[in-house]
């Protein structure tokens, strides 16, 4: 008992003293810290007279974070990154596809056949698992290998916090925390990482807003989808020499739309369910540092490209098998996939999408990376594989973006489908990893559900409106 009373004595003494010192304890403490720090620093530091410190940094900051030029410069930077990615990944993509899909696939298939494997097994493994993996690699690898190093170079240089600085005013107007701009930037890499990075926000209210809206940052898994579809449907509208610029502009539009949605939804949440004060914060702009090119290339390749690719492959192989199964298991002579697609098509029509896209998004819940390969495989299997292949759920000879375009168009895709797919790719549920991360960070099923379903509802509303307007105009 005496032990307990000793402890209580400390607490009550502290309580008493706290009243005596009064409210300004924190201020007194901070004051003395600042005072001491200042004295020590003054003794240890000498400045050279030659040039004022940070002169170049200040000039750069004046331009990059300027009220009028900041935003346009940011958009131009993004445009250059996308344009380089789009222009640069075309050739290596088709090269990879021709090796992995055109050349290796029949070779492996014949080898398995020569060993007289049962047809269903070689179908499941080769036409399902191998092909979808090969597709993920050839569709995803080149854009990632160009996009990530460029993005990392900007990060290493010190540009990301400037982006946050430019966006800060906007986010504050939306009732959100200025640091949300940083977590959004992190989300451009990976939404799960973006959700974790919201820990830098002190206020639980603002942190929750940042978590819910992080999904509006296009992530690793969705950039390639955006870039590919923009290249086919938007770039296709322009003369060849302008195609890259058109496609880049379309991707930027979607990116900016995502930012706009994060602002609107933040504003909506602040006005309704998450009312509260906006907390002030100070954002330290780090010095510009010359990026270490080689190291950046290495880390972005290991950290991001290989990591994302590996994740895609891990999910693509089982997804490929699943696709093969739903395309080959038949009920009443019609495959499961076709049953679903036929059932959903009338509904999907209202949103300018189709059953294949919806099915692909269900199969691709674990990883956004496999949406495009899934769509392609399902489309081919649904087309009955006339000139493209030789069996359900199998894909052949799609060794260039033109071929991909051809297959999509021949199954009834239009410009509208392309636009709506890009919109739906921005506005749909986060991948399962992100959903799990949201639950871990919020410890709330309610907010996890909100973060999951809110984007889908928005996606359906937006694609519905776009479709109706499109039909009205045409």
């Amino acid at each position, binding site marked *: 008992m005496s032990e307990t009373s000793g402890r209580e004595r400390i*607490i009550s003494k502290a309580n008493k003293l706290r009243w005596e010192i009064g409210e300004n304890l924190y201020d007194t403490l901070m004051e003395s810290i600042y005072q001491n720090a200042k004295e020590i620093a003054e003794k240890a530091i000498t400045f050279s007279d030659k040039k004022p410190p940070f002169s170049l940094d200040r000039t750069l900051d004046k331009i990059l974070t300027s009220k009028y030029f900041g935003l346009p410069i940011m958009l131009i930077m993004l445009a250059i990154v996308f344009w380089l990615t789009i222009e640069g990944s075309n050739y290596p993509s088709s090269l990879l596809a021709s090796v992995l899909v055109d050349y290796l696939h029949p070779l492996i298939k014949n080898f398995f056949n020569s060993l007289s494997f049962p047809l269903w097994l070689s179908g499941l493994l080769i036409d399902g698992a191998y092909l979808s993996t090969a597709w993920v690699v050839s569709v995803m690898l080149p854009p990632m290998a160009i996009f990530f190093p460029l993005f990392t170079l900007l990060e290493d240089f010190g540009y990301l916090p400037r982006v946050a600085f430019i966006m800060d005013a906007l986010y504050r107007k939306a009732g959100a925390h200025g640091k949300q701009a940083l977590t959004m930037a992190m989300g451009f890499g990976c939404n799960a990482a973006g959700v974790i990075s919201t*820990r830098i926000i002190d206020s639980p209210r603002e942190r929750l807003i940042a978590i819910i809206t992080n999904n509006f940052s296009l992530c690793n898994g969705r950039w390639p989808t955006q870039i590919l579809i923009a290249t086919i449907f938007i770039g296709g509208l322009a003369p060849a020499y302008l195609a890259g610029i058109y496609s880049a502009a379309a991707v930027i539009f979607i990116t900016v739309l995502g930012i706009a949605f994060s602002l609107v939804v933040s504003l909506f949440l602040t006005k309704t369910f998450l009312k509260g004060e906006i907390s002030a914060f100070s954002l330290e702009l780090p010095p510009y*540092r010359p990026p270490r090119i080689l190291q950046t290339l290495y880390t972005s390749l290991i950290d991001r490209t290989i990591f994302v690719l590996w994740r895609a492959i891990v999910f693509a192989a089982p997804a490929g098998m699943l696709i093969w199964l739903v395309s080959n298991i038949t009920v009443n002579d019609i495959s499961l996939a076709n049953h679903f697609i036929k059932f959903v098509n009338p509904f999907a029509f209202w949103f300018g999408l189709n059953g294949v896209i919806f099915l692909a998004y269900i199969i691709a819940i674990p990883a956004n990376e496999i949406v495009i390969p899934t769509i392609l495989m399902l489309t081919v299997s649904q087309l009955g594989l006339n000139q493209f292949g030789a069996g359900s759920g199998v894909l052949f000879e799609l060794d260039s973006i033109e071929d991909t375009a051809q297959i999509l168009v021949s199954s009834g895709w239009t410009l509208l489908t392309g636009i709506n797919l890009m919109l739906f790719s921005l506005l749909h549920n986060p991948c399962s990893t992100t959903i799990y991360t949201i639950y871990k960070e919020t410890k709330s099923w309610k907010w996890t559900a909100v973060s999951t379903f809110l984007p889908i509802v928005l996606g359906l509303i937006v694609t519905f409106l776009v479709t109706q307007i499109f039909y009205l105009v045409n």
Partner: protein
Amino acid sequence: MTKIENHNCVNCPVHNAGNLKKLGINMENFDFVVALAGNPNTGKSTVFNTLTGLRQHTGNWPGKTVTRAEGAFEYEGKKFKIVDLPGTYSLLSTSADEEVARDFLLFGQPDVTVIVVDSTRLERNLNLVLQIFEITDRIVLCLNLIDEAKRNGIYVDDRILSKQLGVPVIPTNARSGIGIDELTKMIFEVATGNYVCKPFRMKSDSQEFNKSIEEIVNLLAEEFPYLPNKRWVALRLLEGDQNIINSIRSGELGNIKLNSPTKLIEAENKI
């Protein structure tokens, strides 16, 4: 500043061979625990990578590390587990990343705390340094980014700084590996107790404040004689930190008196 003149020796593999051994994530049977603290974007993760040979993603913006990263290295036959804490501006606020850092320093009881500071922003960085001084005694100050400071015409005298602060100060440029060998050696010296730090204690102009702290420290000394950071606990009590009040009421605070790895692991599990 003779350290800079030794530059070529430091980078020579012969010089390093047998001393620093990067162990990556192989953290078994460590002898000492080293915490890596500091303001955001001062290069903690770069120091961490250089010491452990790991390749934690580093980025030029504050707030990149929000969780703890762990790795290990070996020096002079002793194994060091090193914990990269999230960067924080202070230990007095309530965001989740700052709590990770504060709780680890308080309950994790690291053998050595390396505080990484940005030479170009020394004064502001010292605010955090002084707060950490309240929590722990065994400190090595890593004066990072000296190249950048030099480029901007700022010269920090590490010896004066060391004298002022009462802890070893090592100038480094972790990006190019300068000073890392001296840093490792100093971590070793402080961990083994060869170098005894006498960290600067904050003085306040307010007598009332100083007296209150002293009174509570005395009470704490009666109740928890082995508690190593009484001043900090007293500060938090005066502020009314509910976590600290609870851990006093439950007597939990008395458990963190020994510096043994088992205590560390227990404390870690609580975090």
